[in-house]
């Protein structure tokens, strides 16, 4: 076989693999500007931010020691004889190692290098910290910006993690805000031994509720992490005039969690985020697909579908969309992700039909006042 034949084979194989992806998705400049891009995009502010955070870190003193067991290297689920974690440390291990490893694999596959994630600054570890921490880590936070908390106002703060030098595998570090009206932190990233990380977060506080910033580290044997209060409960009492009903508070909590954990659509593989056309925007949701209904689907065969979602004109500034299938043998879609009014989203899905079943795609949209679900039939006989 000569070089020309090899070249031809590889070219034709790649064309087959790409199949129907020949058309470039429409340009969405807002999405392009918000996308992380190359690694150097966030380095400009990293040095002063890191220096400021380390200085304030000592003053705030909200530190939680994290002990990373050496059992990560030996892949044991737990080490009862190991060092005792601090009171604030939470640790969970999976009942079986295989499940923990699978969760770790999925997390690593979905995480970026820290230098590629907007809102994360990466630094080294000083000789003093290296000697002090060895194979442990340290979580801390800078909440000094939240001096006089007001409900409904958005505050920025940072969480930090210093990983001591060890030969442990990289962990997947996830930060989020809890018990707040809304908020978010940087996306999950790979935290490597011998590095320090400063993660930017923001949160809108709820009256009478002590919000939390949490750091979770996923390892091949389970998870560990800690949390810190964003406000002092004694200085931030509930206000009767602004308190919400239990149902509203629950919806707000669910919404806050959904927004904090869902990435922007433009960063999700398999999702195209574009401006909605004038004829696409209506008072209600627009759901549909150019690919469906699938006529007389063959049971057991895998079909690729592209589903469309256009939020209503009066939708909240940010909601979270998740698509799931029912009445099918198997199916999955890209997401969940954040959605905004005046945008249209194309979501790549894959579904295997079941004999005698039409299959339904459910669009679940989580907003500040609760979640709404819309069903869409996938096939016709």
């Amino acid at each position, binding site marked *: *076989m000569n*070089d020309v034949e*090899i*070249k031809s*084979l*590889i*070219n*034709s*194989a*790649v064309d*087959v*693999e*790409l*199949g129907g*992806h*020949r058309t*470039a998705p429409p*340009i969405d*400049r807002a999405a*392009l*500007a*918000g*996308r*992380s*891009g*190359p690694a150097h*995009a*966030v380095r400009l502010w990293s040095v002063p931010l890191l220096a400021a955070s380390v200085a304030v870190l000592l003053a705030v003193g909200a530190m939680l020691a994290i002990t990373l067991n050496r059992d990560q290297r030996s892949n044991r689920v737990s080490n009862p004889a190991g060092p005792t974690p601090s009171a604030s440390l939470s640790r969970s291990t999976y009942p079986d190692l295989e499940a923990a*490893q*699978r969760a770790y*694999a*999925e997390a*690593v*596959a979905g*995480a*970026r*290098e820290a230098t590629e994630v*907007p*809102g994360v600054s990466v630094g080294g570890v000083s000789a003093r910290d290296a000697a002090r921490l060895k194979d442990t880590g340290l979580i801390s936070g800078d909440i000094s910006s939240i001096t006089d908390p007001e409900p409904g106002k*958005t505050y920025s703060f940072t969480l930090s993690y210093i990983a001591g030098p060890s030969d442990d*595998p*990289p962990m997947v570090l996830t930060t989020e805000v809890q018990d707040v009206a809304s*908020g*978010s*932190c*940087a996306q999950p990233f*790979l935290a490597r031994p011998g590095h320090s990380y400063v993660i*930017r*977060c*923001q949160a809108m506080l709820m009256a009478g509720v002590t919000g939390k910033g949490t750091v979770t580290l996923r390892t*091949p044997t389970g998870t560990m992490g800690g949390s810190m209060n964003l406000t002092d409960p004694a200085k931030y009492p509930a206000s009767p005039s602004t308190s919400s009903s239990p149902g509203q508070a629950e919806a707000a909590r669910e919404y806050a969690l959904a*927004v904090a954990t869902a990435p*922007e659509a433009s*960063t999700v*593989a*398999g999702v195209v985020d574009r401006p909605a056309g004038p004829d696409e925007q209506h008072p209600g949701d627009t759901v549909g697909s150019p690919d469906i209904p699938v006529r007389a689907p063959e049971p057991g*065969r*895998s079909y690729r579908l592209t589903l469309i979602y256009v939020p209503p004109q009066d939708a909240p500034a940010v909601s979270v969309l998740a698509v799931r299938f029912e009445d099918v043998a198997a199916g*999955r879609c890209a997401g969940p992700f954040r959605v905004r009014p005046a945008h249209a989203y194309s979501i790549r899905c894959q579904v*295997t039909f079941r004999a005698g079943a039409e299959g339904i795609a459910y669009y679940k949209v989580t907003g500040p006042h609760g979640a709404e679900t819309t069903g869409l039939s996938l096939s016709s006989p």
Partner: protein
Amino acid sequence: MDSIAGRLAVDRPGPDPGGDRAFDALYRTQWWPMLRLAQGLVDDVSSAEDVVQDAFAGLYRNPGVLADSQASARYLRASVVNGARSALRRRRTVRTWLGQVRDSEHAPPADEPSLRSAGQEAARRALAALPSRQREVLTLRFLADLTDSEIADATGMSAGHVRSAASRGLATLRGTLAGHLRDTEGGLS
């Protein structure tokens, strides 16, 4: 509420209207070649699309590069190569620490193998099995039709290193595919 990423991006100066036109033109002409290149490097459509989007996002925020079409193409190629390396590094991390974790949810579509011929399948496998630098060099040569010096520019390797990697990679590919051909013919006879 704006996301952190959005707020950071808004703080950065965007391209001028002339830059926008240049970007549009480049996007129309280069999206497909870059997607093919990325697919050749990462062998996964979703990852390839992600890598290409990142490359264009980076270019969009670099109006200085955008002013020169040749520099833009070089920037895109280098970004795609770097993005692909990053994606493959994440995959390797999983495999290094966990071995091959099989997950049926991430299985390729059921009809995908039938779409590729046995020869195409063998060529892709043989290419994927090459050491990373050899694979990059041959992918850039086959899928992007680049010269050795252009490949050196995109990968950060020296021209001499590119030539030797291409030579070794091609020798391995020829040997692997010749063996595959013999096996196939033997199976048919």
